[in-house]
């Protein structure tokens, strides 16, 4: 769900703080030329995940733990997935575990140095 992901990224990037109101389904619908119902589904998804909460008649707001939840989710899902892909690809290329670790360490050191 692209809308949900986009709002998550906005929260991670610090554009929305906790207890701040996020876009309404109609604003989102206009911004992306999508059906408001689709936008609402994206928002509701985030409510289910406790990233947003509803204030009746006022709109959707960012929860206090939103950042943490998003980070965890991305770690658990996105990173896990990437790692799985990495391992699968390494298998196909017949790279040994040690070599893979070495590559990872090297890359991390490089990034860390910056």
């Amino acid at each position, binding site marked *: *769900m692209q809308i949900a992901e986009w709002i998550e990224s906005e929260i991670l990037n610090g554009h929305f703080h906790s207890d701040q109101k996020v876009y309404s389904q*109609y604003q989102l*619908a*206009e911004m*992306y*030329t*999508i*059906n*408001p*119902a*689709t936008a609402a*589904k994206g928002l509701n998804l985030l409510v289910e995940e406790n990233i947003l909460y509803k204030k009746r008649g006022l709109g959707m707001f960012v929860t206090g733990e939103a950042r943490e939840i998003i980070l965890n989710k991305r770690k658990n899902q996105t990173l896990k997935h990437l790692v*799985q892909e990495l391992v*699968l690809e390494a298998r196909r290329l017949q790279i040994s575990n040690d070599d893979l670790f070495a590559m990872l360490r090297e890359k991390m050191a490089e990034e860390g140095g910056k």
Partner: protein
Amino acid sequence: MKVIESKGITKNYFRKQVLKELTFSIEENKITGLIGRNGAGKTTLLKIIAGFIRETSGKMNVFSETPFNSLNVSVNSIFVDDQMSFPPALQLGELLNEAARFYPNWDDQLARKLFNYFSFDAKGYHNRLSKGKTSTFNMIIGLASRCPLTIFDEPTTGMDEAVRKDFYRALLKDYIDYPRTIILSSHHLDEIEDLLEDVLLIHNGMILLHMPVSDLKEWAIGVKGASEDVLDFTKEREVLYKNSVGMNTLYVVVKNDFSEEALNKAHQLGLELTPVRSSDLFVYLTTETKGGIDDVFNNN
């Protein structure tokens, strides 16, 4: 509230059955996409809804009335397509005046603004417009009339890319401000799927699917991997699409009703699981032969 209720609608033209027992209903204030290939029966269905033609059997209710010869349905609905015809004696500006007299919810300001935006000449004539311009003008009438039931049948015929985008955006913005029931028919699902809340997929006069767009996106799944693994994984399922990629790799589309467990197992096997784009799914569902166009060229 249900705006449209169709119970076993059948339509015959001479001996040909164009619609086959269609039963569905459309809720108030939703944008529904009526998707089907050319000749699927979209226009016939919409014209029955608009009260232009009569069903051979079954019962159609629009606003709880039979639309054929209902003034109530006529004043609360508008049917827009590129065949809309207007008296050749009236200029475009006059046609807007007429539409304003007929439709109680008509927004003249919106109409005039759109009219100017798309640089129409008020002294021009409808039958001298190009195909794209005709569609654009009809679209303006369709939007500004603000009918509780607005039907667009292939509204973008002949429009160029930019105008199409403008139209979709105008439609959406006006819908947000004035929610109403909109049916948008098209044979290009990918172009309009973002606008839609629901999709009604018809093929050969029958309903294939009727569901929210978001569900449609998850309705099927593409499986790609080593041929035997893929075949093993998808056995005893109806294959919607099958395509050999390279020597030993197969791509198969099946309905997505796998358990979480099964999906994880597939992943472990090294099968690539991908969502299927709705427009592709539409093509797969409406292609008569499972192999697609490639089969035509596979003579051996």
